[in-house]
């Protein structure tokens, strides 16, 4: 109860003392590896995801360096193929999918709900171990002889190539189950663990985002599981389900794969919507515009995402009828997405916009995601997709959405919650510089790819005809800037861990529950179950206080 009243002097019955928080509550490596605390599991995810991001990013820089010139630049064709495969697989399965839900969501969700933990803490820890096991299999593939199938594992190439595909598939399979269990855990938590008074329409939109994501994780990821399992069995024993040489149907594999992987795209981006919906109102100091439209559009996206997988297959030999249905529904899904963007922009109207680092990332998200979104229109329009699919236009489109959308939102979220997670403020100037570099790098890397893609440059090409070289050079330079931006950002964040905890309880003046407890949070989160009486974006009661470098409640000040 004290945790909900004042900031500094937290007198906590359930917790040990003022300096006691989840980071210091127990000591030793075992207390981390065996922890059931959602906050610690989140931190462990965070370390893993960032490491995987560094690995995937290194692959990306090698790819871009190779593509500086046509023909061989630094590696040969086979190595290049392995590089882009692992770049894709690592970024998708190890970074973006677990990124926001598992690394940030794990920390924030129970706090947003006023709960002590997620519904199944042991399952939560198991999910993390499955992540680690999946990552180990991926690395095994890398060390033995890295898979060269592309992250899509299309048959029959994946059943016939001589590289170590099975470890990579096994890794993805296990990671899939890690993701399923996280989603399952979140759904139950949101349904059963909300604090009294916290009705569905008082939930922060981040929770809605995670909820929609979890629905897709639970419904779609098992199909990935069975697909990869069948592919493993196909490759190991030759059972003839996907391999045309044995009577199988390779297009069937694509259906299976995209039945998961299209929802997976939304698994990656919908949590990002949640993060942005948190950041924009806080830094505009104004209620979020159109709460219910944003909340329900997330759920709409989750459901519709299951009906559009065939738009990846317009030229695969899929029938015209099936293609038309998929195309039509794809246009439909554009609408809830557009609604969100418009609502976020409207939120800023008559606000008081503070351009702190998280807000810069959010604005960057709006910019980049809009471009990523509208270029999706070219690809859902069937006649233009025939020309554009499997070219760099697609590469640029999904990097704008995934890298520009999901990853910038992830970094925005990291900056936003960093003071809460670790109790330390980062250097604002470095944060801002990092975000600007990322923004410049991002656009310079991927915008030229739209141009060369529409001009006919196919994707996954090691070699290319010389007329595309200027675009490739620009793109590579952009990639270096991008890499540098992430590097200084990460270094700046890590540096904060070596100083004393200095973050106030509520540095941004947010009104969600996690900001009503100390930074970093106590071991048991809330001493008394909070009772919620209003929505998450009401800022009238919060007032900035220079002395503590954060916000405090007017009502409590008046009361005491």
């Amino acid at each position, binding site marked *: 109860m004290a945790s909900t009243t004042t900031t500094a002097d937290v007198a906590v019955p359930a917790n040990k003392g003022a300096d006691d928080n989840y980071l210091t509550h127990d000591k030793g490596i075992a207390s981390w590896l065996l922890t059931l605390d959602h906050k610690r599991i989140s931190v462990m995810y965070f370390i893993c995801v960032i490491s995987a991001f560094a690995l995937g990013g290194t692959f990306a820089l090698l790819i871009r360096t190779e593509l500086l010139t046509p023909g061989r630049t630094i590696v040969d064709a086979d190595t290049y193929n392995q590089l882009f495969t692992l770049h894709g697989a690592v970024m998708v399965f190890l970074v973006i999918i677990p990124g926001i839900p598992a690394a940030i969501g794990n920390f924030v969700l129970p706090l947003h709900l006023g709960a002590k933990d997620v519904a199944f803490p042991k399952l939560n820890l198991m999910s993390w171990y499955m992540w680690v096991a999946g990552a180990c299999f991926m690395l095994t593939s890398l060390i033995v002889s890295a898979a060269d199938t592309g992250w899509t594992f299309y048959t029959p190439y994946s059943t016939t190539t001589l590289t170590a595909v099975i470890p990579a598939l096994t890794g993805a399979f296990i990671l899939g189950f890690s993701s399923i269990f996280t989603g399952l855990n979140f759904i139950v938590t949101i*349904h*059963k663990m909300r604090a009294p008074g916290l*009705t569905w329409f008082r939930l922060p939109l981040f929770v809605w985002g995670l909820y929609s994501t979890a629905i897709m994780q639970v419904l779609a990821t098992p199909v990935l599981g069975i697909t990869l399992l069948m592919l493993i069995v196909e490759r190991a024993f030759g059972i003839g389900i996907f391999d045309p040489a044995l009577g199988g149907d390779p297009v069937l594999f694509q259906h299976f794969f995209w*039945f998961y992987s299209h929802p997976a795209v939304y698994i990656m981006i919908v949590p990002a919507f949640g993060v942005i919906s948190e950041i924009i109102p806080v830094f505009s100091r104004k209620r979020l515009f159109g709460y219910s439209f944003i909340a329900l559009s997330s759920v709409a996206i989750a459901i519709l995402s299951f*009906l559009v997988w065939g738009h990846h297959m317009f030229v695969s*030999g899929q*029938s015209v*009828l*099936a293609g038309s249905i*998929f195309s039509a529904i794809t246009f439909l899904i554009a609408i809830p997405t557009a609604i969100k963007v418009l609502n976020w922009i409207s939120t800023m109207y008559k606000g008081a916009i503070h351009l702190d680092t998280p807000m810069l990332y959010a604005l960057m998200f709006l910019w980049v995601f809009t471009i990523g979104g509208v270029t999706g229109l070219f690809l859902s329009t069937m006649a233009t997709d025939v020309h554009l699919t499997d070219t760099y236009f697609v590469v640029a489109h999904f990097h704008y959405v995934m890298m520009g959308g999901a990853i910038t939102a992830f970094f925005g979220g990291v900056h936003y919650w960093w003071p809460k997670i670790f109790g330390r403020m980062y250097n604002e100037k470095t944060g801002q510089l990092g975000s600007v570099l990322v923004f410049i790098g991002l656009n310079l890397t991927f915008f030229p790819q739209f141009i060369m893609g529409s001009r006919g440059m196919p994707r996954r090409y090691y070699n290319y005809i010389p007329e595309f070289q200027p675009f490739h050079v620009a793109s590579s330079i952009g990639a270096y800037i991008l890499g540098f931006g992430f590097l200084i950002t990460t270094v700046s964040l890590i540096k904060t861990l070596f100083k004393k905890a200095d973050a106030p309880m509520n540095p941004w003046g947010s009104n969600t529950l996690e900001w009503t407890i100390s930074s970093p949070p106590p071991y048991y989160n809330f001493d008394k179950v909070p009772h919620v009486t209003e929505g998450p974006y009401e800022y009238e009661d919060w007032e900035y206080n220079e002395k503590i470098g954060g916000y405090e409640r007017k009502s409590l000040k008046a009361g005491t």
Partner: protein
Amino acid sequence: MAQETKQDAHGAHGAAHDGAIGHALSPALLIGIWLGLMVFTGLTVFMSQQGLGPQASFIVAMVIATIKAGLVMSVFMHLWWDKRMNLFVFLGSFLFVMLFIGMLLTDKSEYKPDIDRKTADDLAKSTAP
């Protein structure tokens, strides 16, 4: 904590503060359902031997299987007494399975000729002198 943890609608088996949770099935009901399932198993085997033709026998087999599944779900799995949310979630998953199979069949029925043509050509080629 959560307001959803209200007492079950059927108070008798619902949770009192320290009392039992849920509802125990009576032995008679359990055995009755079991007998029903056995009868339907016999019936489906019997029907399959009647030579109804591929279409009809497939439908009959699926209808019987679905009745059996209904019995297992509603009684053995408690769905009859359970929270409606669980039923909704479980049945909802079948919706997605139907969607998955339905779209695949839509596609398959259209491109089947392309496969058949190729298979016929390959056959002709491999038997050609």
